């Protein structure tokens, strides 16, 4: 199978061997059924050993898997009547972000997400899912439109980060991200964010100020890529594996830190192994979140978002408080 990952090789090799034995049994008179049964039992054990004890770096590999499902795949499986809207009305259409209107179980919503490509050609078109300012401004335009028509907003986060380029800086990458954080804070409609792949820094957060932040089990969310962190902190980007552990970037880590709300379980071995099943897992949590948030008033939604972010941070006053209050 293409795109197998280093840590799951034992599983894949064993599976291959079982396949070979089955083929052999079919074509000859030698009966190996008992052998096969034994091996299959071993495979099951091995699978649970490997997939249930994944290290942060293993999850990074899954989050970056070339066939990992993208925003548009989830949109096609979770929503109906999707109508894609293009352009920021000022500069252009950034295809690293997609968005539009759709129905979720019959309920009108706006859905927005980073969009990676799955092959080189599409990745070039999508700029590897790394947006320019016009991408964020398109997203904001669609959010404001959703607010006008009182539609809940669902954001899928999947980017290595905002694009670091000359044109991006000229057009105000910083301002575009900052503006989204600011405006998302005040949206009068429910906002649900789901990290589906890599959640890279400010470029991810710019679609990530919501009432609920969920993460797929094998997605990551971080202030900097493990490679970048290793380069800055230890001047050695090959220490990325160590950085992935130290920086606490996996869904279980972030749940532990109180940053995210729910971990959406993934199918064994990662979402790419069964997208349809993965969409079902996601559907359940989205439905729960939607019904909770739709019961809230506009003010309550804004207040909930305020309190949510206000609570993040670790600090203390070990000495006597001497400032004015």
């Amino acid at each position, binding site marked *: 199978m293409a795109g197998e990952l280093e840590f799951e090789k034992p599983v894949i090799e064993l599976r291959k061997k079982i396949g070979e034995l089955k083929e052999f049994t079919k074509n000859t008179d030698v009966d190996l059924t008992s052998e096969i049964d034994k091996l299959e039992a071993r495979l099951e054990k091995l699978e649970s050993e490997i997939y249930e004890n994944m290290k942060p770096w293993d999850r990074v590999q899954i989050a970056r898997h070339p066939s990992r499902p993208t925003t548009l795949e989830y949109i096609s499986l979770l929503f109906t009547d999707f109508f894609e809207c293009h352009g920021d009305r000022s500069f252009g259409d950034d295809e690293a972000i997609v968005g539009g209107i759709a129905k979720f179980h019959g309920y009108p919503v706006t859905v927005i997400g980073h969009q990676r490509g799955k092959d080189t050609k599409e990745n070039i078109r999508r700029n590897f899912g790394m947006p320019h300012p016009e991408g964020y401004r398109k997203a904001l335009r669609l959010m404001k439109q959703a607010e006008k028509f009182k539609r809940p907003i669902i954001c899928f986060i999947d980017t290595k980060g*905002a*694009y*670091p*380029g*000359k044109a*991006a*800086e*000229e*057009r*105000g*990458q*910083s*301002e575009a*991200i*900052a*503006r989204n*954080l*600011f*405006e998302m*804070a*005040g949206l009068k409609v429910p906002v649900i964010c789901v990290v589906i792949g890599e959640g890279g*820094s*400010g470029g991810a*957060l*710019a679609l*990530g*100020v919501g009432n609920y932040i969920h993460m797929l089990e094998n997605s990551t*969310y*971080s*202030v*900097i890529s493990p490679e970048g*962190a290793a380069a*800055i*902190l230890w001047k050695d980007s090959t220490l990325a594996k160590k950085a992935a552990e*130290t*920086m*606490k*970037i996996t869904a279980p880590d*972030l749940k532990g*830190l109180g*940053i995210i709300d729910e971990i959406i379980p993934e199918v064994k071995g990662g979402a790419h192994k069964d997208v349809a099943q993965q969409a079902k897992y996601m559907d359940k949590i989205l439905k729960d979140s939607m019904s909770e948030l739709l019961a809230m008033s506009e003010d309550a939604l*804004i207040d909930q*978002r*305020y309190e949510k*972010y*206000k609570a*993040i*941070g*670790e*600090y*203390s*006053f*070990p*000495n*006597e*408080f*001497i*400032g*004015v*209050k």
Partner: protein
Amino acid sequence: MLKELFTKTKKKKYATIPSEAAKQDVPEGIMTKCPNCKKIMYTKELNKNCKVCIQCGYHHQMDSAERIKSFLDAGSFRELDREMVSGNPLGFPEYVEKLEKDREKTGLNEAVVTGLGSVNGYDVSIAIMDATFRMGSMGSVVGEKITRAIEKADELSVPFIIFTASGGARMQEGVLSLMQMAKTSVALKRFSDNGGLIISIMTHPTTGGVSASFASLGDYNLAEPGALIGFAGRRIIEQTIREDLPEDFQTSEFLLKHGQLDAVISRVDLKEKIAGILEIHQPGGTFEWQEN
């Protein structure tokens, strides 16, 4: 012996040429050399000019204490949350030691000083980032102190002024530092919706997560001349696009040219200009009109 004293001293055997190091060696503290135009001037004179080079206008780095002195009315500053210190949420190796070292070096508890003060008599809530502490990087404490200063401005209905100086997010606090971008922006939004006035003054350097949050969210976005302001690092961009960037890339002047700033203002004029903006935001004036 005595005779020797009156005889002409012997010719020096060696010519003494002042070494390069000695030439550079300006008595510490008394004189300062401008790194831009190389002019050597009295530190006192430089300080009197808001640490702006008297010859070329180069803006020397200013720490928070100097900023308070030069920008706020004398004796008006009252600090908030001075004793707030960071935890080590990720259990990051050596982080606690690094913080301790910077505390000793700077006399500050964190990379931002917040408080209340006045500018030509106008009360403001103010946050001043200090790049001498951990490069002004934003962790939990920086985010929380700035948020509290915004909330204070909201509570007292006074403008919020922020001087930014930061390398960006604080790596050692990982995603918690990223979330401070959201926290401060959410607070600014509430303040803004309540009619609050936000003035952001970007100073050297304002990059990464700080530039992509509160620094860019002023009703007025201003900058000191020659400051480095941008989202991504210059080297990363050069590596990504594989071409050389213009000399003035990501400077205040570059941002002004590209429509990202309201104005670039010399530090020497800053207080007066800001006071002017504050003045315009005061209620007042008389205007008579006739109803039809």
